[in-house]
């Protein structure tokens, strides 16, 4: 039943399968079982899905309790369309390996970039060292 149309309320989403994107970049898929006023979520039969390129791997995680402030977005998964994806599912080990490789290449590129900038006398301030807006 619809409590408040025009407002963002998670009540209608309960017991449905959701995809939740967290602030740290993780993607969780699970059944939303319970919420509270801070949008803390209880996810059931949760699976953490790692995407690398066209492949993805699922790690079963069980029950997740997510603090509301860490959620970037979440959306309901249409169960009928769920299997209708061009992505290819692979095993956990494989996807973790792929992820590691991806992270490594990213780091290397970053290093090259920073080096190149340093050579030219420029420096990119790191986000964590910035204390002004």
């Amino acid at each position, binding site marked *: 039943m*619809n409590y408040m*149309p025009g*407002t963002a*309320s998670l*009540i209608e989403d*309960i017991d449905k399968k959701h995809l939740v994107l967290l602030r740290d970049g993780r993607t969780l898929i699970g059944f939303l*079982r*319970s919420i509270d006023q801070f949008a803390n979520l209880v996810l*059931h039969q949760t699976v953490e899905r790692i995407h690398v390129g066209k492949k993805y791997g699922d790690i079963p995680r069980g029950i997740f309790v997510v603090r509301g402030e860490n959620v970037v977005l979440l959306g309901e998964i249409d169960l009928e369309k769920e299997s209708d994806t061009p992505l290819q599912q692979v095993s956990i080990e494989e996807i973790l390996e792929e992820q590691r490789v991806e992270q490594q290449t990213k780091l290397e590129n970053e290093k090259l970039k920073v080096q190149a900038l340093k050579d030219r006398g420029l420096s990119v301030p790191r986000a964590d060292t910035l204390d002004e807006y």
Partner: protein
Amino acid sequence: MFRYESLEDCPLDEDEDAFQGLGEEDEEIDQFNEDTFGSGAVDDDWQEAHERLAELEEKLPAAVNEQTGNGERDEMDLLGDHEENLAERLSKMVIENELEDPAIMRAVQTRPVLQPQPGSLNSSIWDGSEVLRRIRGPLLAQEMPTVSVLEYALPQKPPQGPEDDRDLSERALPRRSTSPIIGSPPVRAVPIGTPPKQMAVPSFNQQILCPKPVHVRPPMPPRYPAPYGERMSPNQLCNVPNSSLLGHPFPPSVPPVLSPLQRAQLLGGAQLQPGRMSPSQFARVPGFVGSPLAAMNPKLLQGRVGQMLPPAPGFRAFFSAPPPATPPPPQQHPPGPGPLVQNLRSQAPMFRADTTHLHPQHRRLLHQRQQQNRNQHRNLNGAGDRGSHRSSHQDHLRKDPYANLMLQREKDWVAKIQMMQLQSTDPYLDDFYYQNYFEKLEKLSAAEELQGDGPKKERTKLITPQVAKLEHAYKPVQFEGSLGKLTVSSVNNPRKMIDAVVTSRSEDDETKEKQVRDKRRKTLVIIEKTYSLLLDVEDYERRYLLSLEEERPALMDERKHKICSMYDNLRGKLPGQERPSDDLFVQIMCIRKGKRMVARILPFLSTEQAADILMTTARNLPFLIKKDAQDEVLPCLLSPFSLLLYHLPSVTVTSLLQQLMNLPQSAAAPAPSNPHLTAVLQNKFGLSLLLVVLSRGEDLQSSDPATESTENNQWMQVMFMATRELLRIPQAALAKPISIPTNLVSLFSRYVDRQKLNLLETKLQLVQGIR
């Protein structure tokens, strides 16, 4: 015990004797004593001992009661009594409440406690917290004793078939190490302040030995017509002794967690009173439970007043427990589905007329959707024809054994909090865009209906619900027994963290730049202040409509006053002997926001004031044009200026024209160049303004031939000069005006000959064909 770690800890030498004495005592005391380490120290002893004592205590009254007859009844009474006591004790103990954040509670507590009041709609929002508080006390207390009730009454019926697929949904509570005897203080598995829990029944594998197998008749099966009648408040409901609100909901054989559907089926099966209820009615109930709002909205929309509406949470708690054993008082409603529906309808609305500012359109949408859901449910639970109507979603829910872990009550609780956040004392202030959007929609639909074949939808009157502004004097928290006043810093009483001192700088230190910056800042501040005045003034119209007759003159005065202050702000407050300097005004006009603001203010000013503004603008136009080069906001002023011009007399127009073109007072030899005019003509706004002024002048000339000759003369002189200037300007330099008034040709034809007229026409592109 008296082992000192370091020398410093040793007592002074004077106490040596005492110390030695202690040391002797030390040896005498057996540190590894019985109480600490021996048999006396076993942990659960005291608990068991306590319970045994409690048991004793309880046996006595039980024995007394048994003599009076009906053992079962008295058990229930006993239960009620004990639970009542417990409830009282617990409610005193309950310190924190999920809703007891003072910032919220303050708003809630100022509401009077829910009492049956004819003619008022009571809201679950306000009362829910109190109800919850009270309900949680007794309900939570009941987990322990009610478990024991069930344990006593061993399962009489064989476990039912449909239980199999419900096994997964059983949530067995952890084994308790203590025997839950009625009357003992409950061992808290969860802390007191947790949000409403589902009332779970532990599995019957728990071995709880009770010495005396007291037979307790299982609680009566649910009877949905409100036994207490609608007019009882939930507080009253909770405090009614022997109420099965306090008793355990389920008959012994029922597993703890069920989806409402399953629950309903079970309860329907366990029903002992024939004829009262049918399974279909039971099955229908979950649907209704799920849509209290649906029930409420027709009430609100139809403006039904005079219904006593006990709060939803109270009712829902009521509902998840079966109705008590006491027979229902005579109802006016017909039995069967009637009372069921009626009761649910009579639940307190989640919305209250004066606590929400949901627009009726919004409410209508809500209502429509709920009706759809309700219809769905109705079809769903109709006799026999279940399969076809059920949607796949319902299918999923049915097969999903973990569904509805979150109770309806809990969902309502969250929704209630969200609704509370929406309440406002002034919806226009808090939710301006929402209100305007729905008003627009209403107007659109109204317009459409007028065009269409007549009103189809029901037309709900616009209720302007507002929360009354509650003035609460904040009383700071006081601690008992403390010496003096301890200050507690909270949201209502914030503590000063930083001591910010404003130091004024001396004039000498400031550099030129700083002065300029300060001046600009001051101008910005003036603009902001004037803008707030402007917004208030613009809002007065709406306030007129909402206010009472007596208040209106006061409002008018306020409005006038504000308009005056606005003007003063624009022109500078100190008039002095002659007109104040244009400086402030020019400064304001240099800022984009200032220009827009002036454009908005102009309609409110009196004619003289507005004319003054216009003159000042014209006088300083080149400067303003220069400053406006980046913003290009000046054209916004054209429309209010032209509106104003139509009210201005000829004299003003003449002098205005003079100012605009910077024409010398006398018709002496023209200056070699007229940079003022050049600038004006080269700017879109300037040129447009000029044309409008000319047009107005022409209107005045042509319309009123009997004007003063002096004025006429003046005008003609100015026109001659103007045309002379215009002829001199090369065409390429001219800007493209916003609009070209139509009567300029006739204007110019008076003052120039044919040739020059043609020239002027081409130059100013006065003839339509030339573009």
